[in-house]
């Protein structure tokens, strides 16, 4: 802890930047004209969180990798300098760089699980850096590791030191990663989307931790994120990155109060409006299209040589819900709470343990594969990952018409093609796109194709399984708008499965909050979000990062 006092002494120079990047320019090898980064400059200061915001592909991660000279071979640093303690890192030898990386400048990444070695205890992994960079003896090192784990807020560090990464939750893994990064008492911490893979409640804890550490340790933090809410909550200064350039840099408050550039305004505006709610009836007046009663889906846990079932994983444990025609029900919850399993059960893709699913007056969970066929065209689905939800070897035309063929809509090939063209226009894509393959499209465009595919068979209910969580903020807003438009025009109902509370107000008529396989609270959106009754709903709402003041 005497480290802290020494930090205090250097505080008078705190306003001088610890690390500054000047005119960093990166290009693709063999294409000197294609600049990935164009003259990027910024400073990192002690005790300050500097957030680099932008959509995917804007060059945020390339910036952090270029600073540490960790770029892949395909990219090449053309110009610029990174000044750390009066030395230009681009002039340092590889050996000098190794002393800087990890030791003075630490990095944490998005996927904590893949960054940790799965076959080593977490204590051993932290110990490794300590042994390399310090001359403490065994006993002191263990003491230091426990101190570090305590500092990042891991409960019972004395016992957890001997745990393996898979025994920890996602948030705890990220904490271990931060502890590892802090082990060598770095001056700079680079956090590349540290919370994107985490649930909202855990995201809040991790961000609070980073912010707190920046204060207590006088760390200079570079936070890379695409989420304006995260920025608002954590950063002191903001740089907006757009097509490889920092187009605007300002203090956080000033930036949100008065964004200068049009693009920055668009980024902030694309955040959902929390005060505008869907007009909804109380949900009971509508004739229910789908109703689920006491749905249970349990998966067997098998053990031993004979694979005997010794326990059940209760993925969904007795939930009831109903959706009316033209209505949107949002099913909200953290990962692992059984939202997706519910969706799959409604699509009759998973076997129910007990319960009843009624669609338009017909019980569907007892239907055979064949008897389900006529109902398949009435219930459709949109998936989360736009990159794996389409067969990469089929053209868009084949993808969209597959449902029409297999559900025997009785159309000739010409009629089908006409319909595909109409659908593509409907989701704001060009008719010519039908001859292309999925990999030629961006994430947002692919999600539109998925929507067109679902619409192709005129469904009455679409199960949307996190359709926007893999998209950038601005594309997310466009896709949500499209979904709403379609609801108004075609009267489809949506079961909207999501973990993101921020998009619910403008989209859903009613909300059901799910936790550990059970629905804890349900009701009209406005009522649930404004006056939550259950403590879990309140916790979820508090964790949502708000960009607006």
């Amino acid at each position: 802890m005497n480290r802290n006092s020494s930090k205090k002494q250097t505080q008078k120079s705190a306003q001088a930047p610890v690390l500054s990047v000047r005119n960093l320019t990166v290009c693709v090898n063999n294409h000197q004209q294609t600049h990935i980064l164009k003259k990027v400059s910024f400073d990192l200061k002690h005790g300050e969180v500097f957030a680099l915001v932008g959509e995917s592909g804007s060059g945020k991660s390339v910036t952090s990798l270029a600073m540490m000279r960790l770029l892949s071979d395909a990219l090449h640093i053309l110009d610029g300098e990174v000044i750390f303690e009066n030395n230009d890192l681009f002039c340092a030898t590889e050996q000098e760089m190794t002393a800087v990386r990890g030791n003075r400048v630490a990095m944490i990444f998005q996927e904590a699980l893949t960054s940790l070695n799965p076959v080593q205890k977490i204590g051993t992994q932290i110990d490794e850096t300590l042994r390399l960079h310090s001359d403490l003896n065994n006993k002191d090192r263990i003491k230091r590791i426990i101190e570090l784990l305590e500092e990042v807020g891991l409960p019972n560090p004395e016992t957890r030191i001997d745990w393996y990464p898979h025994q920890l939750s996602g948030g705890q893994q990220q904490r271990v990663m931060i502890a590892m990064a802090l082990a060598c008492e770095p001056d700079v911490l680079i956090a590349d989307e540290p919370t994107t893979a985490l649930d909202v409640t855990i995201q809040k804890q991790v961000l609070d931790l980073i912010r707190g550490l920046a204060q207590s340790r006088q760390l200079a933090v570079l936070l890379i994120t695409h989420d304006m809410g995260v920025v608002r909550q954590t950063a002191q200064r903001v740089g907006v990155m757009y097509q490889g350039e920092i187009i605007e840099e300002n203090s956080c408050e000033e930036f949100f109060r008065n964004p200068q550039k049009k693009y920055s305004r668009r980024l902030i505006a694309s955040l959902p409006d929390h005060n505008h709610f869907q007009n909804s009836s109380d949900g009971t007046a509508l004739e229910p299209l789908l109703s689920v009663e006491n749905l249970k889906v349990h998966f067997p846990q098998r053990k031993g040589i004979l694979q005997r079932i010794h326990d059940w994983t209760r993925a969904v444990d007795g939930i009831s819900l109903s959706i009316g025609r033209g209505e949107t029900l949002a099913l909200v919850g953290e990962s692992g709470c059984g939202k997706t399993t519910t969706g799959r059960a409604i699509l009759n893709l998973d076997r129910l343990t007990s319960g009843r699913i009624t669609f338009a007056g017909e019980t569907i969970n007892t239907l055979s594969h064949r008897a389900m066929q006529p109902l398949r065209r009435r219930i459709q689905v949109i998936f989360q990952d736009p990159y794996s939800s389409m067969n990469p070897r089929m053209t868009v035309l084949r993808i969209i018409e597959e449902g029409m063929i297999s559900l025997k809509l009785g159309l000739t090939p010409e009629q089908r093609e006409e319909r595909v063209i109409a659908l593509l226009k409907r989701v704001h894509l060009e008719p010519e796109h039908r001859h292309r393959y999925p990999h030629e499209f961006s994430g947002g465009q692919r999600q539109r194709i998925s929507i067109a595919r679902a619409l192709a068979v005129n469904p009455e209910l679409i199960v949307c399984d996190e359709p926007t969580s893999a998209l950038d903020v601005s594309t997310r807003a466009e896709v949500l708008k499209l979904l709403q438009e379609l609801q108004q025009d075609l009267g489809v109902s949506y079961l909207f499965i999501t973990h993101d509370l921020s998009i619910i107000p403008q989209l859903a008529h009613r909300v059901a909050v799910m936790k550990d396989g059970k629905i804890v609270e349900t009701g009209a959106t406005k009522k649930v979000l404004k006056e939550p009754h259950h403590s879990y709903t309140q916790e979820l709402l508090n964790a949502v990062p708000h960009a607006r003041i």
Partner: protein
Amino acid sequence: MDIDIFSVKPVILWTDIMIWLLVISASAFLLMLRQNPEARAQWRQVFSSRLGMVTFVIILSYIALALVDSLHFRKALPPVEGQNSSTVYYSNTVHSVLDLALGEMGELKERSYSAPLSLKSFTKENMIDASGEPYRDYPDLQHAGSHLNDPADYNTDLLLQSATGMGKGLIVGLILCTLLKMSTRRSTFPWGAAMATILVIAMVLGWLIHMGNLYHVLGTDRAGNDALYASIKGIRTGVLIGTLATLIMMPIAITLGIFAGYFRGWVDDVVQYLYTTLSSIPGILLIAAAILQFQVFIDLNPGYFEVGLEKADARFLGLCFILGITSWAGLCRLLRAETLKISQLPYVQAAHAFGVSHIRVISRHILPNVMHIILITFVLDFSGLILAEAVLSYIGVGVDSTMPSWGNMINLARSELSQDPVVWWNLIGAFFFMFTLVLSANLFSDLVNDAFNPKNRQERAV
């Protein structure tokens, strides 16, 4: 070898039928692939490198030789006195169309070993000179250089005939290149490399065939058979074993692998049980047992086979079968794992939500997405099986000893290498032909792997 086209009786071997069927289905498959732009782009990548073109032309010429060697017939024997003139008897030796192209190369038999391009035998024999005195010396060969009037012309003749042979080859090569040039005027592939390879192959073949009819270019073996002829005839065996065994293995591996990964449950259990059992039995043991049993069957049922070659062919087919049956486990395991992964992907789930039938999901969503694994395994296994044939023949459970194959040549060369002076040419002949084929197949499969493996494609994209 002069024959009358009407006086031959075609001999249709099982392997001939299979290889020709294979060629037809492979061409149909390629035509089908042309319609898929992604596959076309991948093949384009393979052929846009010079190495890809060169190795492909080499493999193609091997396959062409094997195909020409797969058209068999028996010649009519000249009628003997007292024979009923309406019945025709056919020779017991079976020829192929390739034999016609090779001329008399296969019929020039010496008494024993002779070195490449030599005029004398390799071993001394007792002879009697003009005055009746016995002496011991290297005798002249019966056929090699028999066209020479004076042995002193040997060196000049060698040069002259080489030039003639290469000239003939060059003319054929140039004709082929002109045809190629005319049919591919507007395309960006490295046709230059292909043409150069064609010219080189044509010249080498022209030289080998021309010289092979005058001398023993690669010498003769213990029984006086031409080693070059045996090596060239070995091409068919090598190519066929590579393709047929893979072809027999593929359907088993693909069906079982995909079914296990897709349906899971008890289907998966059964398939896994099968392949773990199979892979825990030593492959050689299984092959040896199967081949020996099959040989017993052939020996007990001579009535099924008209000529000796048909017996050898039946054993060869048996070998292909057993090689195929013992080698499917690897590909099956790969396909099962990949199918397990793919069948959980959203696009397969979406297909289920559309009520697409299982067969359609497998054929439209799963099979096309594991095609790269199948293709890569096919090309990689091809060269492995050629080598396996050599090993099996070496330990005596490979193809029939009367069948020309590189494995048999290597097996015979075992004793030749241990004598002094060493008889090296039989081994070199087999080695050279096998090495060229296996090397080009391996280089080609590397390129295919680069183009089709999604991991490589990702790395290239970064």
